[in-house]
């Protein structure tokens, strides 16, 4: 049995079990009348990256507060690798009783839109949405391998035009949003560039700071140590608008009109999880996002806790998939 069949079989088996659970849960609801009754005693949130990274720390801080809010045990489990596909395969085969949640990232949309045959499947049907979580722009930085005159997006693109095929750009994996941001930038400005993958983004930022690679598109936390040490020049943020946390840093869109790539995290559950459970989680997560200490903690990383409804996340995922599918038709992305 191959991967997908196996997960599918397991889902069918579990779906039967879940409908029974849903019924009994509905009964408890009418009796107890609390949302908390819907949520299992122990929840495991699967993070598709290694411990200590940006998404991981955000999730752990949220998980901590979620545990207090719901009065249940919240575990965070790291299953890194292969552009989040290892975590996706794990969660799509998990029980649909709300005991396992996934932190989704732009990789959900990029993987499926660009390499549908290699991806684990359509995330829109594999997972139910729980809530949008956080959002942060990526940061474009230049290192000492580029001349001092490169101070912003326009001068970076000029340099790349004068040295065709030379510009190396750090990013974090073949199917990730930073890679696509780089490709999109090259496409919009009509400048070719070489994208170089790193398992650990912080190692990539260090390579830029040391002058081995020209520039990078990284998460802000990955680049921050070297920016503060003066080894990296921040050029721009990749989101449509400037980050409220870094108002002085221009957006790429100020040079390339309409450029908009951001890192977002959303919480997902295996498809078939009962609505009551999803709603209870959505409410709890959104209460947690209002926590002032949480918001302050991640402001330096450029993270905003956006929150929102289950539909908001579904819409976002759907529109991103369509956007990348369109881009792949326009440009030869040559995902190797």
């Amino acid at each position, binding site marked *: *049995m*191959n*991967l997908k069949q*196996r*997960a599918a079989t397991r889902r069918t088996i579990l779906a039967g079990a879940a409908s029974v659970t849903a019924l009994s849960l509905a009964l408890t609801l009418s009796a107890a009348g609390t949302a908390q009754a819907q949520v299992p005693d122990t929840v495991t949130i699967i993070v598709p990256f*290694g*411990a*200590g*990274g940006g998404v*991981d*720390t955000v999730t*752990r*801080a949220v998980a*901590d507060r979620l545990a207090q809010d719901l009065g249940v045990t919240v575990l965070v489990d790291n*299953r890194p*690798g*292969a*552009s989040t*596909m*290892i975590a996706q*395969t794990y969660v799509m*085969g998990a029980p649909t009783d709300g005991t396992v949640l996934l932190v989704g990232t732009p990789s959900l949309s990029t*993987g499926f839109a660009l*390499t549908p045959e*290699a991806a684990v499947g359509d995330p829109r049907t594999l997972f139910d949405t729980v809530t949008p979580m956080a959002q942060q722009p990526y940061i474009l930085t230049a290192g000492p391998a580029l001349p001092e005159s490169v101070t912003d997006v326009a001068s970076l693109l000029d340099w790349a035009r004068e040295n065709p095929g030379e510009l*190396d750009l750090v990013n974090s*994996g*073949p*199917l990730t949003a930073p890679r696509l941001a780089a490709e999109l930038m090259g496409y919009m400005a009509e400048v070719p560039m*070489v994208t*170089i*993958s*790193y*398992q*650990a983004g*912080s*190692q990539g930022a*260090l*390579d830029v*700071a*040391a002058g*081995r*690679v020209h520039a990078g598109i990284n998460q802000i*936390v*990955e680049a*921050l*140590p*070297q920016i*503060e*040490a003066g*080894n990296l020049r921040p050029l721009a943020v990749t989101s449509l608008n400037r980050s409220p946390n870094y108002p002085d840093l221009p957006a790429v869109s100020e040079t390339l009109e309409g450029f908009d790539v951001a890192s977002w995290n959303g919480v997902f559950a295996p498809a078939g999880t009962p609505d009551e459970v999803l709603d209870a989680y959505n409410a709890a997560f959104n209460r947690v996002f209002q926590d002032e200490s949480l918001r302050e*903690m991640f402001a*330096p*990383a450029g993270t905003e806790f956006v929150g929102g409804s289950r539909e908001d996340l579904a819409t976002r995922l759907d529109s991103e998939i369509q956007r990348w599918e369109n881009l792949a038709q326009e440009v030869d992305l040559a*995902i*190797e």
Partner: protein
Amino acid sequence: MDYFASLWGNIVLGFGTASSLSNLMYCLIGVGMGTVVGIVPGLGSMAAISLLLPITFHIDPTSALIMLAGIWYGTTFGGSTASILLNLPGTASNAVTCLDGYPMTKQGRGAVALFMTTIASFFGGSIGIVLLMLLSPVIAGYALNFGSTEYFALMVMGLVVASSVSGGSFLKGMAMVLVGIAFGTVGLDIYTGAARFTGGSFHLADGIKLIALAMGLFGVAEIVSSIGLVRGRTKLPPVTMGAMLPTKDEARASVGPLLRGAGIGSFFGTLPGTGPSIAAFMAYAVEKARSRTPERFGNGAMEGIVAPESANNAADQTAFIPTLSLGIPGSATMALMLGALIMHGITPGPQLIVREPGLFWGLVMSFWIGNLLLLILNIPLIGVFVKILAVPYNILVPIVLTFICIGAYSVGQVATDVYMVLFFGLLGYGMRLLALPAAPLLLGFVLGPLMEEHFRRSMLIARGDAMTFLERPISATILAVTVAYLLWMAVAALRRRGQEATA
């Protein structure tokens, strides 16, 4: 230099922070937990750290780091116990300690081996801390010069050296290193996400687990080959202080290996990702190469346990330099510590030492306290551990096997990992019959994936030109040293053969 002028002030500041009652307590919890996790076969420091991580969000960052760090180096400190007594290495670096530690146990000198590794661990750790205190800013600077090309060259050197570690021919060692790298390629490719050698299995996508490989290759293979052969272990003399102490000659002969091991360990510890494993292999190989009687190695040579234990504990301490001053975690455990820092709004980086002197120096001084606690904790425990050997073998085997199974199973909660233990157990037993060494395979497995990542990236940056490894000065030097080492090995082998022929 004002850095050294202010050193004393920093030491006082750090000691003040580290010796506060609550920090002492967190340090004790950390090293205690680390010792337990290190000793139980099949459990890594990740298990203990994940357990304590939630606490760290509620205590101040210095205390959190002191505790997590305690687990990290405490695990290495205790990790040699199962290697020496039961031939069960928890990590690649402990596999080196097995080579001579387990033969010592078989010769009835297990207590001496444990005592000496405890001393070596303390000693290596101490030198690592001294270097951490004196050289952090310098080392942080030189680590900047190491890119993918240099890392790749360094790993080539490590693996070539590892090939010569075990007895038998160099070619056999090399073959086993390569087989280890081959097993390391199983799983999803990090560059493209393509599934490699998984046979479509859902669970092999994560790759083969280190624990399953190490426990099978060493533990299960050892159990199978010694059942029915090991008898009459029931009468052991009580372990007195005298039984633990090495002879005067051994003590004197250990000083050099201790120092060299600590030096090698301190250097490799600062390179993120490679750290303790390469250091332990390298330290062992250096001692074996220096020795006038290399044939003692593998048969219970004291230098063969002292040097690698000194090296991996030194590496554990200096590994904090890239983590704290460059923000690059060298291991999953270090990544958790970085996460705890970022969570408290502290950005790691070159500025950390200047901006957060209380945290940095408090942490460094807590290493002293932690290492001292480990020494005090471990020496009395030697007597207890050695009693394990008094347990009849037919009772010990099921207990050890149960721990191995639980250790493998608990990582991912899938039976596949238990079957992998079986697979590698059979492989390990077959390798024993064919006199193929297991330790190089383990190092190849650990370094293989990193090696591939760095190799492919170097080639990409160099636009497909393999000459880049020879054009960049640091990597060219490392590769030249590696070739020189190979030549020297070949000459030594030929000379030995010549002596055999004349004899």
